[in-house]
């Protein structure tokens, strides 16, 4: 079994961190991955320096997209919009435990990150 379905990631899938919605958050965005049917509703509060104070998500998706979103909610706290803009596939792969994702799963893995980056942009940060 590839390490995608390790117990640790499955924990994040079954019982994700920060699942839910932050009301009146500065960042509030819906995104989907039309070809595989993944969806995410992502909200994030910023502190006075525009760094992420808290991020939550809701959505539907595969283990990769849900675990990546769950892990990301912890990872991004305290980061500036520039730092978040600089994150990429490699960082998500690290978060997921250092694996190399196949092309078919890249979009799943990036769903939450792309949503956050786009949400920050739309919020003018």
């Amino acid at each position, binding site marked *: *079994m*590839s390490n*995608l*379905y390790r117990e640790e990631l*499955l924990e994040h*899938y*079954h019982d994700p961190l920060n699942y839910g919605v932050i009301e009146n958050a500065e960042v509030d965005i819906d995104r989907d991955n*039309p*070809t*595989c*049917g*993944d*969806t995410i509703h992502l909200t994030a509060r910023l502190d006075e320096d525009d760094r992420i104070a808290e991020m939550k998500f809701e959505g*539907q*998706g*595969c*283990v*990769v997209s849900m675990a990546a979103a769950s892990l990301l909610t912890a990872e991004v706290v305290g980061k500036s919009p520039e730092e978040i803009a600089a994150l990429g596939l490699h960082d998500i792969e690290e978060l997921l435990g250092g694996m190399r994702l196949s092309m*078919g*799963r890249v979009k*799943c893995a990036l769903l939450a990150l792309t949503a956050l980056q786009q949400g920050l942009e739309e919020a003018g940060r």
Partner: protein
Amino acid sequence: MTWSGNEVRQQFPILQQKVNGKRLIYLDSAASAQKPQVVIDALSSVYSTNYANIHRGIYRLAEETTRQYEAARAKIAKFINAASTDEVIFVRNATEGLNLVVYSWGRSNVGAGDRIIVTELEHHSNLVPWQWLAQEQDAELAFIPITDAGELDLAALPPLLADGHAKVLALSMMSNVLGTIPDLAEIIHLAHAAGVVVVLDGAQAVPHLPVDVQALDADFMAFSGHKLGGPGIGALWGRRELLEAMPPFLFGGDMILSVRKDRSTWSELPYKFEAGTPAIAEAIAFGAAIDFLTELGMENVRQHERRLVTYALAELSAVPGLHLLGPAPEKHGGAVSFWLEGIHPHDVAAILDEEGICVRAGQHCAAPLHRRFGIPASTRASYYVYNFNEDTDALVVGLHKVIKLLRR
């Protein structure tokens, strides 16, 4: 060749391989079929012994290649019972064939206010080109809905035909998701009675069913060689009168009769629609795939798959929390799609892959169909000549592993 003792299966070298020490269980033939040895050999043989550009060549190498290329066209024409070999045009894939009809026939025959009819179960390749045509020509795009059982709701058709605005009906002969085989005879009868041209998407049907375009009384049919064991090529069949009246689609070498600086005239059929150097060896190998199927007999192929699908539907329905899509076996082609409660199809496919089982996960290029059933995506196991019930057994075991791992 017989179906017993794995004789058919043994013709496919890729299926003799082990993946992670396990037998490769290929259940994704609706996406693309594996190739029998005769097709692989046809490619090597053309390139090693008899390759040259075709048509204009006066030397024997070119003449022999031309002969083989045209012989492949004739095999395909016979396979679908076209009235004439000239009605078969080589294209890259079913998608290009459908686009050819839309660009060439569609732009000249569908105008503002006209109605284009498709169905809710179409593959994107038989939907998006018509969306474009509707927008381009300011026409209306109307849908035949599907029932909960995954069949076309034919009660919706007569009203769409009644006002005389409908110009064309484009529909799949077999759904690549639900496996649905619509009642084409009735549909074509209704459409023709209303003077509506019928464009068939044969991408799934031609590899899996006996198809007779004359008996069907169809107008156009597009299909793909790669889905029936051939290489990366496809074909469009059309009725001669329609093809002759159509303007060319792609312009360039081989499709012209005469070229002056300011104007050109076109070749006769089928060359009018084959611009530039065709995929020559691919066409010849397409012919070899047709020979392979002809030898098996398409009625036998259908019966074999019906047995496989009957078994698969029964076994899968016993998997807890598994919901099957599509109709009963007698109206069901080789594609079996389902969803598992609480588990994303990507995870199903990824975990099955660990067991050497190849299935497809996603929307299978049919987003509106998935929206119709209110599911974001599905998992599809699709069967072909080389599958047997042991493949279904392995799939069921694999699905239990998926459930054990992911369901709480």
